[in-house]
């Protein structure tokens, strides 16, 4: 599909959609949202880009190798953050007992491990949806 209107609108929309997705991921412990919803929004922006600009242009923005790395990296970040709790003297995936930075409730940097885990889940959901779209649309 090669349409001037679609391409122009998508070029304007994609940055804002991605910004909103990042907001959902990083403010997950303060407002409705979180890793799953934010990752899905970011992945939707990539899929929108691929739909309007074509698969070749989109895979230059986010290469399949990068997507696979993000897929493994998100899960590894989750597990490593959990193991970090053991190193610091708590249990697996411990938050307050492991001494993560609690901060003042309501501020952005608060809640300790919650933001890290949301980030990992967001990366993982993004790469999952992008990878599934790529592999399903490759054969036509």
């Amino acid at each position: 599909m090669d349409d001037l209107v679609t391409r122009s609108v998508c070029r304007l929309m994609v940055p804002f959609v991605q910004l909103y997705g990042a907001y959902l991921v990083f403010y997950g412990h303060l407002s409705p949202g979180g890793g799953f919803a934010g990752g899905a929004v970011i992945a939707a922006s990539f899929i929108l880009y691929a739909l309007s600009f074509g698969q070749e242009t989109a895979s230059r923005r986010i290469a399949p190798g990068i997507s696979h790395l993000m897929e493994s990296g998100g899960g590894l970040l989750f597990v490593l953050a959990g193991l970090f709790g053991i190193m610091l003297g708590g249990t697996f995936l411990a938050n307050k007992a492991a001494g993560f930075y609690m901060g003042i409730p309501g501020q952005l940097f608060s809640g300790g491990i919650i933001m890290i885990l949301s980030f990992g889940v967001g990366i993982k959901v993004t790469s999952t949806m992008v990878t599934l779209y790529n592999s399903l649309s490759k054969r036509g």
Partner: protein
Amino acid sequence: MEVNPLIIVAIVLLMAYTFFYTPVGQIRNFLVLSVLFIIGVTLVLAVSEMPLFGSAEAPAYNNVALFYIEETVPQTGAINAVAAIITDFRSFDTLGEATVLFTAVAAALANLGALGNKE
């Protein structure tokens, strides 16, 4: 009304008998319709036993919900109770969900051959 588990087992056995052991025809149609009618009546009776929407006596409003409302901010430092439950109180469950996503992608890539392994 308490729904007896024996009734459910009987319905399942009746369904199996209907679908596998009766000849195709009017008798089978009658049996299928009667089984569906029994299941429908059971479901309607079960729904009529559910608590009203927003009722304070619903079984979901027990001390667990009260614990989350009271202990979320002191124990996790997050003001969003849902995020605190997902990634702090129940983070093992979220790890399992991430594993499910990983398994789904691995299975899809293996089946679609998207990793470059030619047939």
